[in-house]
């Protein structure tokens, strides 16, 4: 897969069909990968495809000027399609390399599983159903599906829906919806005051670094409402009330655009379980509007048009 990607990406740059290639390169921290964005053919040798390609890269073409060759997993491709629906990127400006994805390793889970910091793991490879690791110099094998992100258990489209080149053969969904929604279910089961206290505690940690917003492909406002200061909607400084307000409004803004890529939660340095909010909203949008994000690039975005059949219970 990697070689084919390097070859095809190289051709695109050489023939001037794209201005940039956006893919994954080896990270500088054990096991991690890092976005590789380049207009130089010689950099393409660094492209990698492995079970650690966590980033959703679909945000980059919005920012980059010109035509882009981009690597996407299933969830990322749906973000990209959603951006097309919102006219943030044009399909004709993209050459999409699709990666059929069996799940991406959650490094926090992995650390928990091996009972050691990720720093101690020097090598990891997926072999069939297992992940083989080198921990402190000795070999360790763990089931791959024990350490993938929660979102991956609920992934109905592991093979990108929109692509020009598919790298590898299609992957059939391997669903465990219950596991994917475990944390959300636990929140649903709480009574309201308990749930309120939970989120109050979580948002007391927020330092307003805006990591969640800035990695989110659905957060594409030129000026986010929290950055508007005449008038000021929320305080610039972190208080749990305003942190929560910020995140709830963000959740509503990305409703119908969020593909459950989970980048918000992965980025959060203080460990706020943000996916629990976002994924809940994905469910709501599906229940109320029958809308699934990023399926049809020619369909209008769910919240920028009206259907006579749209639910209006709240107005009664």
């Amino acid at each position, binding site marked *: 897969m990697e070689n084919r990607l390097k070859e095809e990406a190289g051709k695109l740059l050489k023939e001037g069909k794209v201005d940039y290639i956006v893919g994954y390169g080896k990270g500088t921290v054990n096991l991690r990968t890092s976005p590789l964005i380049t207009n130089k053919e010689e950099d393409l040798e660094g492209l990698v495809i492995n079970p650690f390609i966590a980033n959703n890269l679909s945000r980059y073409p919005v920012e980059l000027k010109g035509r882009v060759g981009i690597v996407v997993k299933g969830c990322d491709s749906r973000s990209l399609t959603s951006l097309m629906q919102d006219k943030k990127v044009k399909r004709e400006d993209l050459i999409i390399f699709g990666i059929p994805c069996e799940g991406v390793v959650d490094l926090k889970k992995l650390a928990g599983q091996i009972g050691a910091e990720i720093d101690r793991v020097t090598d990891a490879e997926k072999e069939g159903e297992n992940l083989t690791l080198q921990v402190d110099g000795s070999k360790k094998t763990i089931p791959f599906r024990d350490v993938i992100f929660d979102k991956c258990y609920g992934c109905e489209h592991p093979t990108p829906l929109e692509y020009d080149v598919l790298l590898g053969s299609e992957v059939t969904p391997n669903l465990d919806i219950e596991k994917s929604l475990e944390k959300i279910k636990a929140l649903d089961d709480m009574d309201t005051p308990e749930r309120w206290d939970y989120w109050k505690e979580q948002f007391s940690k927020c330092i307003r670094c805006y990591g969640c917003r800035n990695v989110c492909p659905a957060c594409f406002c030129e000026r986010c409402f929290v950055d508007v200061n005449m008038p000021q909607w929320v*305080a610039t400084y972190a208080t749990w009330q305003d942190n929560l307000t910020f995140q709830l409004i963000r959740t509503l803004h990305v409703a119908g655009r969020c593909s459950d890529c989970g980048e918000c939660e992965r980025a959060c340095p203080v460990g706020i379980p943000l996916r629990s909010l976002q994924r809940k909203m994905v469910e709501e949008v599906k229940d109320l509007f029958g809308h699934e994000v990023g399926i049809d690039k020619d369909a209008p975005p769910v919240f920028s048009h009206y259907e006579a059949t749209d639910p209006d219970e709240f107005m009664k």
Partner: protein
Amino acid sequence: MGYKKIKKDQLKTLFNELSKDCSLFVPSGSKGYVGFDPWDGNSADFTEWYGNTTIPPKALFFPPVEAMLRFRKGEAGYEIEELLPNGRPQIVFGVRPCDARALKITDILFSDTYRDPYYLKRRENATIVGLACNEPCDTCFCTSLDISPGESQDVDLLCTDIGDELLMEAVSDKGEDLLSKMSGLSDASGEEESKAKQLGESAKEKITRQIDTSGLLDKMRSSFENREYWEDVSRKCMSCGICTYVCPTCHCFDICDENNKKDGKRVRNWDSCKFPLFTRMPMENPRHEKWRRIRQRYHHKFEYFQMNFEAIACTGCGRCIRECPVNVDVTEIIGGIQAL
């Protein structure tokens, strides 16, 4: 006073005692990330799992949010009430050598021409108990910045984990004073002292990540106009504030007034040069493009701070590398500048 030691299973008793007369902060992971939290009487086992905190100890002295003053509209104009820290003594236990150095670096800034009473009052009231690193993280590069994982002159008291016990050595008068107040200590042997030194040496060898600071000031200066370089290295940056907020030396802040009809408060909060809106409130952000903002961050740390205060504002703690969602790596960026 020579080296002392305490059994690790006695730490809980020690902490309970110390926290009677002062605010004691220790590394804790109870909130879902590692930070310095007030001692809660529960678990003192951080020596077993703790690499470093996500949020640096700077947050205890320069908090993310603090009210500076309160104002009220009275008969004869505005009444102003300054809200200084309460002056209660603090002990911060388990500060890593890189973070202790970082506090010395921010001390320079906050005690310059403008002496910041909020920061300085907390610093004066605090005793820093260091904890040497036996197992540095993969992201550490403190040795490139003249810091040793196993020793520190920047703390008041330094602990080294020698197995079942913590070895303690007073570094300052404050440390000496604290050590004399601690109960449950015994004298350490010469052997134990040399064991601590060995652990420090072997920790040093474990650190492989590095930056080259020789001639860096000139290199930084000449890199300033190299737009292509800065555009290349900043392309993947998401313009969030994580690197600046987890940085132990980043110190930029914003001040805003929260106004009700008759009263209000003035609040200071962390701000980040990575945000497009940085400095927009007083006038304008001169750094519209992302690459200019990235350039600013590294130039501030490795050039301007050095020009102003003869110190590099980086201690190689590696938090920015570890926490960045897209793996922007300061050692790569500085390496790239050295190679230009």
